[in-house]
């Protein structure tokens, strides 16, 4: 898409010279105004507000007072922050490791054209249609050690204290997240695979490459940018996992699933500490931006160019 837009002015440059290109670009700049406007109102203004609040003491109800660096010092000295940070990164990395291979393989599989694959694809996508809160409530009911699936189906191995033992609860959170988001990433990979030119595979077949060789030498390299896109969404998205964990465990047992976003909510809205909660919000923004930039870098400088060029 970016390809088509950017080639048109380039062609014009050749014909009519630099002056009219500038005019054209100036006219196009105004088209970004509505987007800029909304970005300013709904992203920049709240961001500045949060930054200011992080230096204020406020219980969310009374008057706002100045706190200087107080909130920052107290949050940075709080072991709870490092627990939350560690959990956030742990869930992020393990989620990526679990979700990427599954959704990649499912995406490649469902990109095929047989009818049964279309039917299966519909089944795979079902979890995507449910809201996180509904998913969490359903899993909670199914896994209840006394009244859940275990007693219903008579499967004693299922009767674990799933949400009551720290490492089980953490594992379960990662599993439910994967269950919900694998379909989304499968969809992205499916689209990516369908973009790969058939001629590449035909050429490979003539050269005698098998399915596995084709996968590693054609599909995977061609999916490089799809992998980066999906990973960016996965990694940055994992910073905002909130609703699912909030409903499923509430951050417990103890603090074993209290990730950064949840920590922010609980400090702000449960404990009436808007200042410290804002500090965590700022930290979240910084981490999110850092991660997004890092992943963009991974893509290399040529990422804006077409992958299909030269074909």
């Amino acid at each position, binding site marked *: 898409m970016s390809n088509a837009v950017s080639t048109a002015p380039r062609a014009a440059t050749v014909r009519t010279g630099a002056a009219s290109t500038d005019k054209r670009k100036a006219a196009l700049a105004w088209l970004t105004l509505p987007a800029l*406007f909304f970005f300013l109102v709904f992203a920049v203004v709240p961001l500045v507000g949060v930054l200011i609040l992080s230096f204020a003491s406020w219980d*969310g*109800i009374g008057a706002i007072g100045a706190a200087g660096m107080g909130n920052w010092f107290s949050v940075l000295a709080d072991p709870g922050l490092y627990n939350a940070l560690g959990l956030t990164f742990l869930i992020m990395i393990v989620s990526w490791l679990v979700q990427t291979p599954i959704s990649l393989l499912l995406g490649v599989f469902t990109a095929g054209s047989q009818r049964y694959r279309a039917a299966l694809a519909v089944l795979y996508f079902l979890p995507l249609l449910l809201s996180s809160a509904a998913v969490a409530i359903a899993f909670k009911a199914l896994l209840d050690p006394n009244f859940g699936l275990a007693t219903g189906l008579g499967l004693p191995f299922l009767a674990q204290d799933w949400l009551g033992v*720290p490492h089980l609860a953490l594992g379960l959170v990662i599993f439910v997240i994967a269950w919900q988001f694998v379909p989304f990433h499968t969809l992205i990979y499916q689209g990516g695979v369908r973009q790969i030119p058939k001629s590449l595979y035909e050429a490979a077949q003539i050269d005698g490459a098998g399915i596995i060789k084709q996968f590693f030498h054609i599909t995977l390299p061609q999916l490089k940018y799809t992998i980066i896109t999906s990973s960016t969404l996965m990694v940055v998205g994992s910073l905002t996992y909130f609703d699912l964990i909030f409903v499923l465990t509430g951050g417990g047992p*103890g603090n074993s699933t209290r990730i950064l976003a949840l920590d922010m909510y609980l*400090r702000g*809205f449960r404990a009436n500490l808007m200042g410290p909660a804002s500090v965590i919000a700022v930290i979240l923004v910084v981490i999110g931006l850092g991660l997004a930039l890092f992943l963009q870098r991974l893509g290399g400088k040529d990422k804006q160019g077409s992958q299909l060029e030269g074909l």
Partner: protein
Amino acid sequence: MKQPQTSRRSFLALAALTPFAVAATTACGTSGPGSSSGGGGASMWYLSGEPNQTTMQKAVDAFNSANGDNKIAVTYFQNDAYKTKIKTAIGAGQAPTIIYGWGGGTLKTYAEANQVDDLTGWFEENPDLKKKFFPSSFGAATVNGKIYALPNQYVAPIVLFYNKELFEKAGVQPPKTWDDVMSLVKTFNDMGVAPFSLGGQSRWTSMMWLEYLLDRIGGPGVFNAIFEGKPNAWLDPAVIETGTKIQELVSAEGFIKGFSSITADSNADQALLFTGKAAMMLHGTWTFGGMKKNGQNFVQNGKLGFVQFPTVPGGKGDPKNGVGNPAQYMSISSKASDKEKESAKKFFKDGILTETVIDTYINSGSVPIVNGIEDKLDTSPDKDFLNFVYDLAKNAPNFQQSWDQALSPTAAEALLNNIDQLFLKSITPQQFAENMNATLGK
């Protein structure tokens, strides 16, 4: 050379637009629900869930049809969602006229931020209304000697429920002392029945154990010192002993397996008791109605037993002391118009605890906080339970409000978090006391 100029101009244009944007968003804000109660009535937010929602709706309907000029518009919210929403609404200056709550620490934050009206003078003008309610119900409505809320609904102490059938089968009596508790734990575990049901994921459920144990061990003075923010109040030896007793009970498998993943919202803890999976349950009397409704004649057939919390040998607390919710509360938003406030006060006086509402509460197994209802309680099919609750509330030398309501929201959240870890044994009683001590005055 031309291009940067253009972009600077567009940025300037954008900067010029910003005030409009801010004006537009604030304009949207002020037309929220707060000012939408035209016609002179008052708005009220209340909790959804039966039987209270229907009771309140009937009371409001009756009041509205008798008071055409002072109509009450009520909106219902789920309990946990409400607690967050009301706080946000008050902070944003969008509170309803009538603010429903549980008194205590939260009401204190509202009062100190001048968000709710002082009702002391109004109660003095209406002495009959003040005399109508249990005197103990005003404690949690009072901040710095002034009354900021109208007590209403019912008193809900925490009591020890037990399954009579299981006790008969085991040939044992309900516990009178902590030693009885520990020996019953062994008896029921040997029978393959969980001694105590507990919805530990909700955390305030576990808190009820601490409230009673601390009272029985150290007397009401220990928590009063905490409440008043006295230095090192949490480091009292009674707090450590309470924590130790809790962890002993957890280690002896006193609570049902998997208790920390059970929530009270789903009433799974009540179900464990009436289905015979657990022998006892420490819970608020508000669970009685639910067990009566969902327990398939468990209550109706007299299988539900109830006693006061046992004593602890050598403890200082009076065994008659109670803990729980002395009442529920309603305040008036100081941001409401005079007309709205007037409607709210009229509703407080004539609309809330009417005879019909009192009867409805009694029928649903609750004891309304109204004096002189002994005769009514005696005619109810649940009279044994209702009289037990009534006597407990009336005769308690000290009735401690639930800690998470009594403390400030900041301290309460830290408390619930630390209690969770205490029950998981991931912190020691000493660490619990120290962690909580750091929250004093917050």
